[in-house]
């Protein structure tokens, strides 16, 4: 079976700064992958390149053997680290928007999650708190039957109780053949759900291993290894 994500010599340069340098990476289906690294390590750049939001300086990125484009955007469900919805829209208008544009969006699943979270679908986004907006965005992203979910800091701005709900939501709302690529600094919160971790440093891949390998080879948790590798 062809890999879900393949990066070959992927490079992104801003003036004289390499945000990503000659990155080779392959991800298979059916895993939850933690994309970890300190600030400025290239995590968001990699995510943007996968989503076609940046043009690579060199190398290539393929999703299901296709370069980023219309077909890959149908397969990838992306949650950016920032609010990307029009604040003037009501939640139900945003749901209609997703129904209109994504064939694989399940309105029933979205409504069920919004009900669980007690989010009023008639409310305009600008009237909701930052945390609630983040929950709405996550609901939208996880209500798609995608093959690759890319979640950039999905739990960064919410309280610990909501974090549990969000992680539960992620785990219970994805197809087991799909892959989740999850970028976060809150490693301890997600460590138990990860199958594999990728460490990025200065735009380069420094580790690509399963969580079991890390525990058996280094005898450490992912969080402990991260702190050791990226010690200031």
């Amino acid at each position, binding site marked *: 079976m062809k890999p879900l994500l393949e990066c070959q010599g992927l490079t992104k340069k801003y003036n004289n700064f390499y945000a990503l340098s000659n990155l080779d990476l392959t991800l298979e289906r059916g895993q939850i992958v933690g994309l970890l690294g300190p600030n400025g390590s290239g995590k968001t750049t990699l995510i943007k390149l996968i989503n076609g*939001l*940046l043009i690579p300086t060199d190398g290539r990125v393929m999703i299901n053997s296709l370069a980023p*484009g219309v077909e890959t955007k149908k397969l990838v469900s992306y949650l950016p680290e920032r609010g990307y919805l029009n604040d003037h829209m009501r939640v139900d208008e945003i749901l209609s928007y997703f129904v209109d*544009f994504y064939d694989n969006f399940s309105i029933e699943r979205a409504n069920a999650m919004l009900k669980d979270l007690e989010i009023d679908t008639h409310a305009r986004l600008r009237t909701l708190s930052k945390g609630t907006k983040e929950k709405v965005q996550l609901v939208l992203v996880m209500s798609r039957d995608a093959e690759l979910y890319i979640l950039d800091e999905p739990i960064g701005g919410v309280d610990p109780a909501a974090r549990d709900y969000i992680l539960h939501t992620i785990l219970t709302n994805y197809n087991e053949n799909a892959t989740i690529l999850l970028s976060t600094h809150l490693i301890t919160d997600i460590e138990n759900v990860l199958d594999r971790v990728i460490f990025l440093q200065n735009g380069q891949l420094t580790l690509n291993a399963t969580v079991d390998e890390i525990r058996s080879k280094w005898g450490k948790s992912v969080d402990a290894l991260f702190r050791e590798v990226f010690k200031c």
Partner: protein
Amino acid sequence: MLGKLVKYDLKYGMRIFIVLHAILVTACILGRILFMNQLDFNLKLEAYLSPLILFFSLFLLLFTGIGFGINILLVARFYKNLYTDEGYLTWTLPATATQQLWAKIISGIIWEFSSVLISAASLLILVSGDNVTEAYAQVAADVTKSLGMPITQFGISLLIYSLFGTLGSIVMLYLCVAIGQLFPGHRILCAIVTYFILSAIIQVLSFSLMFAFNIGPGTTAYLASRGMPATHYMVTSFRLGGVMSAIIMIAAYFGVQYIMNKKLNLS
């Protein structure tokens, strides 16, 4: 997909568009009832000339303001939807960059055309009172002779030219925003500076072409047209302007398309 993109682009500015044009239509109806209908053209010209000039100056400002407002609406939608945080959603929709661009062009044409037509209808409301039409009937023959065509035909020609001109200006505005996004910072400022630079280049090119085609001020064709109806020179200039607009529009279109396809760089 294109239809859906256009639908949401139109939905975005609907409220502002309605408010702006409701103000315009209301002002024209009130202007007609409270001012134009009260004018007595049988009086001496000096009796109503000054208030009439002041009145039409105010309305010229209003019409210009509405046109400017629509341009701002288009630019804001293009910029916000494609190059701010909203771009993270827009660019991850299953649509090509070309579809995104065409959605913005089509919605822009619909907004601009609707605005030009509503403005024309509003102007008609303002000047179609019985007292105005009767007064105009007395000078209609002179005006027709001076213009070289009846005023209705002149008005329709201006309307068609305005509609055509808006096409070029929409794509040109989008090009300026897209070029502004190529800079690492101060992107809105860079887009505005780009607009002024491109406008200046186009002005210089227009004047150069007018002289090259012997229709610039002071040229022999210009001087020869002085004895002819006012529209003769205007139509000649409009033809050249139309060709220029078409060239600018095509060049701007390929410029924006190239930037959107090859230089997308969301910060």
